[in-house]
């Protein structure tokens, strides 16, 4: 007998399982219309491959998987596709999503099936492909694509296959009834799973409130030679353990059966464990041995607002209200409608939503059964929540931090490890909806992460832009320098051919020398110039410096009007050299604007000539006055 471990916390709510176990599984009639959401699993929604008006056969693929994490969808019965549109899907928020709606024609006519007679001859990849094509996702609740879970990396050895037959939520009995009536199919599914992942140990976990099925399951498992399937000394064992919520949580079940903890943020595969729900095992059996894709499941309909609680074998897409009607649903007594169990199920917005791959239960309680929660009282930090928490968190502290939106503190206290089982809220004497606070906080934390990433991205983009602008600027400067150097070279080559130029330059030199001797300078002008010079060179304020420089220049001009004319010649000369450079460049590059540049150069030369003429006139005038 395999040793069993206990997990921290847990609660013992009223089980309420007997109501729906009095009858055998009932096959529900085919609803006139079936609504099939394209996203019944975790991952990318499937893509429709049929069109409105198409005739489909039972089991025909109507939507294919998109990307690696996705599963296809199949027609649950034969009929006509009458719509592909947004419909309300089973979701806590009452969301709408794309659905394929099929009108049943009542024939329930199968497509051609090619059952495989001996799956033991198939290899791992073929089996996984069959499972993937059959649209199988986890039937226990989360709905993760099964083929991905089975397609473990080669470098991680899986030594333990765990079958989850815990069904720890109150009221739900779909797995229990499945074990009662489909033990052989379950065992067959387990054998296929064993063939795929080749474990050395197969642990079949059942809570001790379902002891009536243990013998049947053990006998069914005993019919298979697991060692032969895996080529290892594999043994399968049914293990019962004390009933306690939430022992059916994957992490908790692994702890119960192996004593190991799945690392935070990690996967069971890291411990060499793969965990599968028994409903999934049956679906695998159907897919491989019967060539029947996942188009139906066992769903419990229970609660005091239905007169005939029982388990149904129901086609996917069947409206909840259709199924409820089979159980004599008392609408006026129904306070809320829950898909799933009372601990983790979600309240439905209306009764038209369909049964999907993960729907294990429809619970229709009366107000007396699950009363409206009273207003929350103050948290007295009694710690009952911490006693109940299966993840060993401190719910009362998390609540405190959640109220204050202290996201860092929440992360420090490992809110990410909360599995939202609801045990804390269940025991809270002050009726505080703790899990709601955690859900909201988790969203806040996720949002903050997204914001943070966006901010990082924006900063990266900004830095890149700055870098690019700087690079362009640098390139511009480098190009300008190169042009200047080229122009200088060209000017030198041309030499001092322009005699007039040389004469003017000599004249300028003479004027400068004259000025340096300090001829004809009024003392007042001199003083203001000095002051301006001091400011121009010593002030910290750039504007003051510029103003002072200009003032000094003006003062100088007033004292010596010749200066202005000399400066005009200087700037005209610069313009000439610039325009000539441009012409040289343009000639080198065969620029189409060459003519324009040439014109500009001529204009500049004319300007220079007139400036030079102005200086000569001025000199003549001043010497005449003298």
């Amino acid at each position: 007998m395999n040793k069993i471990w206990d997990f921290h916390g847990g609660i013992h709510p009223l089980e309420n399982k007997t109501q729906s176990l009095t009858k055998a599984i009932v096959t529900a009639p085919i609803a006139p219309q079936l609504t099939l959401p394209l996203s019944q699993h975790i991952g990318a929604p499937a893509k429709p491959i049929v069109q409105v008006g198409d005739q489909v056969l039972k089991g025909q693929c109507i939507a294919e998987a998109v990307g690696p994490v996705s599963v296809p969808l199949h027609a649950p019965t034969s009929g006509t596709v009458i719509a592909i549109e947004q419909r309300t899907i089973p979701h806590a928020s009452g969301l709408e999503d794309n659905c394929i709606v099929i009108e049943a024609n009542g024939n329930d006519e199968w497509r051609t099936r090619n059952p495989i007679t001996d799956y033991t001859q198939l290899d791992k990849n073929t089996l996984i492909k069959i499972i993937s094509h059959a649209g199988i996702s986890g039937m226990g609740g989360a709905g993760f694509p099964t083929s991905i879970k089975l397609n473990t990396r080669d470098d991680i050895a899986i030594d333990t296959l765990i079958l989850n037959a815990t069904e720890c939520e109150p009221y739900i009995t779909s797995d229990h009834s499945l074990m009662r009536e489909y033990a052989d199919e379950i065992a067959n599914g387990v054998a296929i799973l064993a063939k795929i992942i080749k474990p050395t140990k197969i642990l079949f976990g059942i809570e001790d409130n379902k002891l009536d099925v243990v013998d049947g399951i053990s006998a069914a498992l005993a019919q298979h030679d697991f060692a032969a399937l895996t080529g290892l000394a594999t043994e399968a064992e049914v293990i019962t353990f004390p009933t306690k919520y939430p022992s059916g949580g994957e992490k908790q079940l692994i702890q119960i059966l192996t004593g190991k903890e799945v690392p935070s943020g990690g996967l069971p595969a890291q411990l060499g464990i793969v965990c599968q729900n028994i409903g999934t095992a049956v679906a695998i059996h159907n897919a491989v041995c019967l060539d029947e894709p996942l188009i139906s499941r066992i769903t419990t309909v229970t609660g005091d607002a239905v007169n005939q609680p029982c388990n149904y074998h129901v086609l996917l897409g069947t409206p909840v209200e259709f199924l409820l009607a089979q159980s004599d649903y008392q609408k006026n007594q129904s306070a809320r409608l829950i898909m799933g169990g009372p601990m983790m199920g979600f309240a439905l917005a209306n009764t038209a939503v369909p049964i999907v791959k993960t729907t294990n239960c429809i619970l229709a309680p009366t107000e007396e059964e699950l009363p409206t929660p009273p207003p929350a009282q103050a948290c007295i930090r009694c710690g009952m929540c911490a006693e109940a928490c299966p993840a060993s968190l401190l719910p009362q502290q998390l609540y405190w931090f959640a109220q204050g939106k202290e996201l860092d503190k929440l992360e420090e206290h490992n809110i990410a490890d909360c599995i939202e089982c609801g045990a804390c809220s269940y025991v809270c004497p002050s009726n505080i909806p703790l899990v709601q606070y955690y859900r909201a906080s988790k969203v806040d934390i996720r949002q903050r992460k997204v914001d943070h990433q966006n901010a990082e991205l924006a900063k990266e983009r900004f830095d890149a832009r700055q870098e690019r602008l700087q690079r362009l600027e640098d390139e511009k400067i480098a190009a300008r320098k190169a042009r200047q150097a080229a122009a200088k070279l060209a000017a030198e080559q041309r030499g001092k051919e322009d005699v007039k130029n040389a004469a003017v330059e000599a004249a300028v030199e003479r004027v400068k020398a004259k000025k340096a001797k300090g001829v004809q300078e009024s003392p007042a002008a001199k003083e203001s110039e000095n002051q301006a010079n001091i400011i121009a060179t010593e002030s910290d304020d750039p504007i003051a410096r510029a103003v002072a420089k200009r003032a000094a220049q003006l003062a100088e001009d007033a004292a010596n009007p010749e200066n202005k004319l000399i400066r005009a010649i200087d700037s005209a000369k610069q313009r000439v050299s610039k325009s000539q450079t441009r012409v040289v460049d343009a000639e080198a590059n065969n620029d189409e604007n060459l003519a324009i540049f040439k014109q500009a150069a001529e204009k500049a030369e004319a300007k220079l000539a007139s400036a030079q003429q102005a200086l000569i006139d001025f000199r003549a005038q001043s010497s005449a006055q003298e």
Partner: protein
Amino acid sequence: MALMRITSPHAHNKQSTSDVMKLVLLATLPGVLALTVAFGWGTLINILLASIFGLALEALALAARKRPIAFYLKDYSALVTAVLLGIALPPYSAWWILLTGMFFSIIVAKQLYGGLGYNPFNPAMVGYVVLLISFPIQMTVWAAPIELLPASVSVPNLWDSLLIALGFMQFPSVDGFTMATPLDLLRQNNALMIDDLKQQYSQFGQWGGTGWEWVSLGFLVGGLYLLYRKIFTWHAPISMLLALALMSALFYDGGSSASSGSPPFQLLTGAAIFGAFFIVTDPVSSAVSNKGRIIYGAGIGILIFLIRKWGNYPDAVAFAVLLMNFAAPLIDHYTQPTTYGHSKKSKS
């Protein structure tokens, strides 16, 4: 009927905070009964007046804070505070002592901090300490055990007790009617053997003090009942009592009064048992994790002994509790339990 749409979980157990508080009140009964048998009606009058003041002050504060009065009064927390303070105060305390105490308990220690759940300090102990520091004479006069009263002194009946508390009547005879408690005697006599003290003063009983042994037993029964009902965990009270017993065992020299008495004496006199099960277990002001509560309780136990032996007050539960209330957030910070998937084993 419109379908209600709330998120999971949908199921809830039947216990409410009011139920928890009512159970605590119920559990004080054996101790209160023992107090009444040992020291007369005084404690009951204390509880009665404290409860009236407590509820009135709570209602007043809630009205001032614009909170629904009836909703919060129904959590019974004010009543619990009143009963605990009434038990802790000397029997036949004057009405104004009780009013002052309840004012500091309810208004200052609780409502000013934001009401139930937000008070960093145990409200009853805040009220008690304010009184102890402000009115040392009134606070250190404890009624004599009835069985030790001389025949000439008659025990006041219920009505007279009320009149005494309300100030309309004097104690029959102050000297004969009150006596130093065993812890007082131990403090005051440092140079005798405990056996000598026992012969000299009838207040000493077989283990603890006369009458006190039964009182402690009464509160022990109530406390164990609460433990059985899972109102609190064993961690804080047991570690407090163990720490106190260990400390007194460490310093007990076999019989001199200077050594503060044997472990059973320390446990069965004063407010040790009452404190362990009714004060230390106050969840609001204590550490939150089980490990944290062990440290918290042990700290209180050690402080009680230190103050009893070397401090200026004969008993020390209130001071010790308040000091550890200060430390509770720090303890919480360092005693966060290991979350699933975070153990060293699973990390590797």
